[in-house]
């Protein structure tokens, strides 16, 4: 067991660090939940892509660097430490792309991935429905066979950045007689197609951070089905494990935030009153980083992501909230008007999206600890 990096990995990390240092936008981009900020973020993504830093772990034929998982994690650490912009296409890059790598056709990969890598096409995740939140298998949106493809009908909701995105991916009930996990098919759809209506929904900060999407006889071609018809649930589970497990919340994010918290604490004269909480935040971020190194090693040696994804998610969602709460308490009344309060609001969504904490705890208890299954 060791934590030493080999020379090639160090060189990769240093190259990323140098590039970020000299290419970061010289001012903070506007929020990607505004039309203006969304456009600025697309420009930034194109710049990242030009230097092949937008999707480092992908094969080079799609715009990546064939980087190993470890290199990817280190890149993310550099990215967050540099204070680089949030990734506007993260649902595409970190959720749809892994799904396409495991279940997509070659045609789909060629058609979709290069444009995703440059954020020429930004993707929204259209999973949740008004009645299907935690219980995603209760979804009601339908897909009906028609010539050369399918007609989609129904309503999706809480779709992040769908107000500005180009395409969406999600499950539809393709077998009308089916219930729950059976008879679902995984589709990709153009959000500008006839019959699609997107209604932006303002989030707590007032910006349209997510949207509902209405499908009214929207035609999608057969080539936009991912995996086999009726096998959508299985395909979706790959995506879900990715969301919870590794990709969405790289340890770099929490390490960078913990470092900022330590700086803030120092700036306030290192008050003893907050010492324990600041130390705990840093220790938590470090624990999360090391845990991720363990996961990376296991995956590199052929392992799979399983229910420990839920352990991971529980840990980071708590860490993120605690870290931000500590910052606000430390800042005192100034926190009311400080950027940290925006970060705090965002941290509060962590225990909800990607499977709520309550659902994750049940998964951990039943699937990892083998406790008896309760009613659900």
């Amino acid at each position, binding site marked *: 067991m060791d934590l030493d990096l080999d020379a090639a990995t160090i060189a990769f990390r240093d190259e990323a660090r140098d590039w970020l240092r000299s290419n970061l936008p010289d001012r903070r981009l506007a929020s990607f939940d505004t039309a203006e900020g969304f456009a600025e973020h697309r420009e930034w993504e194109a710049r990242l892509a030009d230097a092949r830093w937008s999707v480092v772990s992908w094969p080079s034929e799609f715009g990546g660097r064939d980087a190993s998982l470890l290199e990817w994690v280190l890149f993310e650490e550099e990215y967050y430490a540099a204070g680089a912009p949030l990734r506007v296409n993260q649902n595409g890059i970190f959720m749809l792309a892994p799904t396409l790598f495991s279940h997509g056709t070659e045609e789909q990969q060629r058609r979709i991935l290069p444009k995703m890598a440059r954020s020429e096409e930004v993707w929204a995740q259209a999973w949740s429905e008004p009645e299907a939140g935690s219980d995603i298998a209760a979804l009601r949106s339908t897909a009906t066979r028609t010539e050369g493809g399918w007609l989609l009908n129904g309503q999706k909701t809480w779709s992040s950045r769908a107000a500005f995105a180009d395409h969406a991916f999600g499950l539809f009930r393709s077998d009308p007689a089916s219930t729950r996990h059976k008879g679902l098919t995984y589709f990709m759809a153009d959000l500008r197609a006839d019959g699609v209506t997107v209604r932006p929904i303002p989030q707590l900060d007032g910006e349209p951070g997510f949207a509902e999407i209405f499908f009214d006889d929207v035609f999608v071609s057969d080539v936009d089905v991912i995996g086999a018809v009726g096998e959508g649930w299985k395909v979706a589970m790959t995506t879900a494990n990715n969301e919870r497990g590794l990709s969405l919340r790289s340890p770099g994010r929490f390490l960078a935030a913990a470092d900022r918290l330590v700086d803030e604490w120092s700036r306030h004269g290192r008050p003893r009153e907050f010492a324990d909480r600041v130390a705990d935040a840093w220790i938590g971020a470090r624990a999360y980083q090391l845990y991720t190194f363990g996961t990376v090693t296991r995956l590199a040696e052929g392992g799979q992501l399983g229910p420990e994804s839920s352990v991971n998610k529980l840990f980071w969602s708590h860490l993120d909230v605690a870290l931000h709460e500590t910052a606000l308490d430390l800042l*005192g*009344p100034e926190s009311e008007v400080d950027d940290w309060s925006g970060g705090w609001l965002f941290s509060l969504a962590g225990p909800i999206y990607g499977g709520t904490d309550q659902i994750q705890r049940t998964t951990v208890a039943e699937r990892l600890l083998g406790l008896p299954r309760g009613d659900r």
Partner: protein
Amino acid sequence: MRFTLSQEQLDFAASIDACLTDTGPKGLAELGVPALLVPERFDGLGAEPIDLVVAFDQLGYHAVPGPWVDTVAVLPALLDDEILAGVAAGETLASIVYRPHVPYALDADNAEAKLFVDGDDLRTFTAGRLLSSVDKARRLFEAEPGEVIGKAADAARAFELGALATTAQLLGLGRWLLDNSVAYAKQRKQYGREIGQYQAIKHLLADVVTRLELAKPLLYAAALSLRPRDVSAAKVAVADAAYSAARTGLQVHGAIGYTAEHPLGARLTKARALITAWGTQGFHRTRVLESL
């Protein structure tokens, strides 16, 4: 000893509640809310801090925006002046800066009385830039202190009353968050049943009601004595309880609670802003310890 609200106080709370439900803050002056602490010689009610708590609990429950703490709770302890007659009539608003606990001025652009408390001195201030608060309903301005205009009647008492009224607002916010989360848990179905049937949800809500119920007596005791230790103990416990009500409320509602279209968010962000207003948790904890 009779440590519970009187029938009159309960009726007062009920009439504020009804007024805010039906007509919004407009009717509050008629009920005498702004006049509560104004002395009778300025046409006020000369009421007790416990009545203030009853009223601010309702203001918090209904998330009423505006400089109510400044105007109704704090100003009458700072001044002994005709301007209080305007407050009692519901015509005059105050905006008060009390550093370091209240660094920015709420609704300074609408306030007739703009006061900067500097020890025992009172200064005017000039309002500067409008800042963006985590609570979108709080319009905060930077404040540049000006000339000394006189001595505060009782600056220390003004602070205790500011903290007390803020604490009462937090209690009301917490109660609303609990009530509405309980109602939602009884109605929202996932996996074929009301989410309130899941023990995970039951336990979260049970913890909130426990915290709120045990914080409330501290608030009432603080209103009776207005002693710094009692006010601080109340602020710490109520703010923690209200915050747990906010966190739990958001968690129980899921994504619908995360929208600006749902009333939960405004309570959540207001709770966060009030936790650090009129003394942080750290400040109040320290005051408790130093008094022991």
